[in-house]
């Protein structure tokens, strides 16, 4: 028989091990200061003038170098950034922001009401050519009340001002008036040392296009103790296989946007990888062109119905009943997305499930096409454009092509590069249908500039003023339940008219090493490294 003390020994050892390990465990939960976070971006940063540069990659730099008035949490709550508090007048026309006392730009100048006014005025100035300008159209003026109080006066009530200031594209990024006036736009675009001056947790050090961007801790950041990291180095690795290799080898700590089709491989290859994902906020759509220029001149205000999709019955036959969204999601996204016909993806504020309005129904699709005169004697053929930016577009286009043959329709795929797609769609060029995922939507309101009748970015070029009226009503409504009702109306209206033909949401993935702690996932909207620390 085994002596009892021998049996007890492993237990004692276990307890001792636990006691010894306890301080380390506690350490692991206490943020550690220092270290360099190595981040990988899949795309190049366009340039560094935060108010005008396109692309998420720039935005994710702007959010860390810059600060704004407010931020938004993943559950939709607003937290102060440079503003410590804010109030709204009862008529919804005045917003007063009280600024924190100790906020400094990286050049040492104070973040005061004048800087806030300067930044908003700059964004609203047409000469700046900011992509944010359309979001600021509801603002009438900005007034400095005192050095730490600023008032935003609106033209009409706007229920999404805080959303907009926090997270429409970059949100409001405050610019140092001193630095902005000292350096030219070209200096900022190129990232000339000294020209990129924000008030965020990290100060810009350098950017070598095609190689790396470096940010260092700003010691005078207004949140005591933050950031934890000494440095953030952002590298551009375009190939997902190389990205995976670099991650597995421990050369990078964080992949800011990882290709969905490689997620399963990554999980199998690197079981320790922390894959971050959440609600789908990006729409994947198969857009159909509704009108064409009557006089043949692109962008002409005189419109005629598109020869194929100008007829609502064809749009509904093809986009609504002819597309099997479940099948597309199963094949293109391996089931990791939500089939979703509504224009607002499932993760966007005020989204409504309107899938029941478009059940997959081949017979109904054929009947509608027959009504228009299409059938075996007069087969319908259209062109389906997909761009090469993401392989998933081509996969979706291929599945749609197959689904079209089931209803006697021929879809000819045209594969183009991203710039050609942008060129064709933005400039009212000839196209019938395209597959693309567009901007992530934090609110339905933020989709207005992609889908109202006057927007350049409304590729289908419908000219239905009812859409504009619905958007305007939605934006002005301050009562949340009423606003939700309008949101439902908008989404149903879009499906009924097929002005916006959604296929699904589009999943978004980030990947972190197990030693990267403190990061809060908030999709593409907020990528902040201020609370990140390295447990190694």
């Amino acid at each position, binding site marked *: 028989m085994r002596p009892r003390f021998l049996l007890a020994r492993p237990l004692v050892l276990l307890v001792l091990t636990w006691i010894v390990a306890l301080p380390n465990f506690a350490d692991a939960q206490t943020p550690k200061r220092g270290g360099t976070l*190595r981040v*990988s971006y899949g795309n*190049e940063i*366009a*340039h560094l003038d935060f108010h*005008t*540069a*396109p*692309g998420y990659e720039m935005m994710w730099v702007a959010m860390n170098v810059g600060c704004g008035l407010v931020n938004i949490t993943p559950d939709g709550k607003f937290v102060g950034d440079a503003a410590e508090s804010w109030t709204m007048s009862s008529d919804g026309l005045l917003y007063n922001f009280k600024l924190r006392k100790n906020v400094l730009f990286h050049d040492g100048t104070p973040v005061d009401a004048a800087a806030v006014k300067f930044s908003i005025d700059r964004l609203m100035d047409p000469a700046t*050519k*900011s*992509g*944010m*300008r359309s979001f600021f159209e509801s603002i009438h003026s900005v007034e400095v009340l005192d050095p730490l109080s600023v008032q935003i006066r609106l033209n009409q009530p706007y229920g999404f001002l805080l959303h907009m200031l926090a997270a429409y*594209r970059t949100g409001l990024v405050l610019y140092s008036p001193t630095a902005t006036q000292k350096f030219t*736009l*070209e200096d900022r*675009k*190129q990232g000339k*040392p000294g020209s990129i001056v924000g008030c965020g947790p990290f100060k810009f*050090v*350098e950017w*070598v*296009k*095609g*190689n*790396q961007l*470096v940010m260092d801790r700003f010691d005078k950041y207004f949140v005591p103790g933050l950031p934890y990291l000494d440095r953030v*180095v952002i*590298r*551009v*690795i*375009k*190939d997902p*296989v*190389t*990205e*995976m*290799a*670099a991650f*597995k*080898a*421990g*050369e*990078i700590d964080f992949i800011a946007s990882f290709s969905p089709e490689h997620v399963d491989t990554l999980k199998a*290859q690197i079981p320790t990888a922390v894959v971050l994902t959440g609600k789908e906020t990006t729409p994947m759509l198969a857009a159909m062109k509704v009108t064409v220029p009557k006089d043949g001149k692109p*962008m002409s205000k005189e419109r005629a119905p598109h020869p194929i999709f100008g007829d609502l019955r064809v749009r509904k036959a093809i986009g609504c009943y002819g597309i099997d969204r479940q099948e597309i999601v199963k094949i293109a996204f391996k089931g990791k997305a939500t089939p979703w016909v509504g224009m607002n993806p499932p993760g966007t504020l005020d989204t409504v499930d309107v899938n029941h309005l478009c059940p997959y129904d081949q017979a109904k699709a054929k009947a509608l096409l027959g009504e228009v005169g299409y059938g075996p004697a007069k087969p319908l053929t259209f062109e389906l454009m997909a761009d090469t930016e993401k392989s998933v577009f081509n996969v979706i286009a291929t599945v749609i092509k197959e689904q079209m043959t089931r209803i006697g329709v021929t879809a000819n795929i045209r594969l*183009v*590069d*991203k*710039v*050609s797609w*942008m*060129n*064709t769609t*933005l*400039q009212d060029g000839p196209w019938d249908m395209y597959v693309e995922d567009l901007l992530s939507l934090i609110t339905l309101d933020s989709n207005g500039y992609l889908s109202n009748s006057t927007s*350049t*970015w409304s590729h289908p070029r419908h000219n239905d003023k009812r859409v504009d009226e619905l958007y305007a009503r939605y934006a002005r409504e301050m009562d949340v339940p009423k606003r939700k009702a309008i949101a439902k109306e908008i989404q149903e209206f879009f499906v009924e008219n097929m002005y916006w033909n959604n296929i699904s949401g589009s999943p978004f993935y980030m990947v972190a090493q197990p030693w990267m702690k403190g990061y809060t996932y908030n999709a593409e909207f907020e990528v902040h490294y201020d609370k990140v620390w390295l447990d190694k």
Partner: protein
Amino acid sequence: MRTYILRRLLQIVPTVLMITFVVFVMMRSVPGDPVVALLGDAYTEEDAIKARDEYGLNKPIVVQYGIWLAKLVRGDWGVSILTGRPVLQDVLIRLPVTLELIVLSMAVALIIAVPAAIIGALRQNTWADYMATSVAMIGVSIPEFFIGILLLLVFSIGLGGFLPSSGWIYLPGTCPTLVCGASLWGNAQHVLMPAIALGVGRAAILTRLLRASMLEVIRSEYVTTARAKGLSERPVVFKHALKNALIPTVTVMGLQIGFLIGGAIVVETLFAMPGLGTFGIDAIIARDYQQVQGFALLTALAFVIMNLAVDLTYTFLDPRIRYA
């Protein structure tokens, strides 16, 4: 000789002009222009028209080319429409990376090709020859990106980061940044896999060519004479046979520079290298005309100068060749 070099240098001018003109016209014939990307989310038709006017994109192509050329003569390579950065500054930052890659991949090619070809030629129709020929065939057949991925799988993923897959470290003295790593050892680690990926294909071509050349030379009378004089095999092979056999190989090496620049685009993308290849492909995708012109000009210059250098090498390899 001097007259010859001068004449060849003068010939470079129309060649480069022709290349840059063709690229200029082709780029503008491709759908899309940089204005769409420049304006991004702020795109409006009015702003696009203004921007095209501002950058002279509405002018006839020949006029645009003339303006570009006139600036070039003054040393101005233009400014990137998208980034606002001077093109010359950008290409000069990236040139050392690609130059290093090309030189080292050619070195890799020669290190593999020369011994393999010599062994193959001296031991014709033996297992060593068959092996060298087979390896050459495999090398020719596998594209650079595939070799690159295999190397990544083995040395970066399989061996737990034995060789780094990305995060370029510059050669000391070539680092254009404030905060970049620059060390000889770090650089060697980073460049090894890309150089092998790019060099193996070239090695295969050179092996086959040099082997055929060697076979021809070692059967020539002067080699037989050298052996008959009692010279040992080493000087016969290296001093007499190899030097002459190298002439067609050197010609092909010069021509391979063009392929290496093309291959560099793929390899640099795969290994996330900040070189001219990635610069060129990004510029083409974004329709950044000025950058594409800078890239085309530099690669055209590199190609013609390398070929001139190759022609001049002949005089060293074969003293009978004289340029007048």
